[in-house]
């Protein structure tokens, strides 16, 4: 009975992860400009990965494998935002203009500034 419940939860998580992966892909295509497409890719980076790894962890039970899966997730959640930020920063330096709402401040005034070492 317990095994059944764990399997069911695992399937649910794996399927949800898959669905969010597809949604991220759709977002990547449907959003209008480079910066907003990053948000679409962000869905695949985060919830999709989290759901799939937790789903797999339920399949593996408590073992060394679970620890490895959690480490994969941890590294992914640390590196994915870094990569996204690197892309966005590169686009900003390369003067890619974002499509913005009228009330929003512009990106141009931040262009000359540099990221400082903190």
């Amino acid at each position, binding site marked *: 009975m317990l095994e059944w419940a764990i399997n069911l939860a695992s399937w649910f998580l794996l399927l949800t992860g898959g669905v*969010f992966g597809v949604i991220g892909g759709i*977002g990547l295509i449907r959003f209008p400009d480079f910066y907003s497409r990053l948000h679409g890719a962000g869905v695949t980076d*985060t*919830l999709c990965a989290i759901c799939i790894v937790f789903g797999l962890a339920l399949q593996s039970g408590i073992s060394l494998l679970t620890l*490895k899966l959690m480490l994969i997730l941890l590294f992914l959640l640390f590196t994915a935002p870094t990569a996204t*930020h690197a892309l*966005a920063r590169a686009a900003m330096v390369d003067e890619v203009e*974002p499509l*913005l709402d009228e009330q*929003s401040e512009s990106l141009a005034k931040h262009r000359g500034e540099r990221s400082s070492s903190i």
Partner: protein
Amino acid sequence: MREAFFLTCWLVLLWLAISGVYKPVILLLGIASVMLVLWLSLRMKVVGEEHAPAIFGWRLPVFWVWTLVEIVRSNLHVARLTFSPEKISPRIVTTDVPFRTSVAKVVYGNTCTLTPGTVTLMLTRDKLVAHALDQTSSETLTSGRLARKVLWLEGSPEPEK
């Protein structure tokens, strides 16, 4: 030096956890790789306060759970926008970075990017510039909700309103 010691402990633990094979030859290889990584890190001068094991203590797991909830919430929001892309109103948001330590500043920038809907464009000593997908997404930053949480994580007192 203290940080280098902690880094070594982390690397040894990580190697032991991932390897799963504890034969003498393999262990020697493990020691060699730990020493190589340690030497490279020291040479690159990247060993710093972030290698302390209890850097945020018990607050870190709590912060992770809070972040997980935020990730799920913002994901659902962005997923909804994916199916009606005409509803987005992209904007640039600038916020203060009121933290003492550099680790907290990086956590702030990283968590901002980690929640879909906001991407950190630039992080300087006292300012964060982010791109947000719409009003609801930008609220995490403009209302200071995330900043307050990171201040709590850092152990700093909350700013007076």
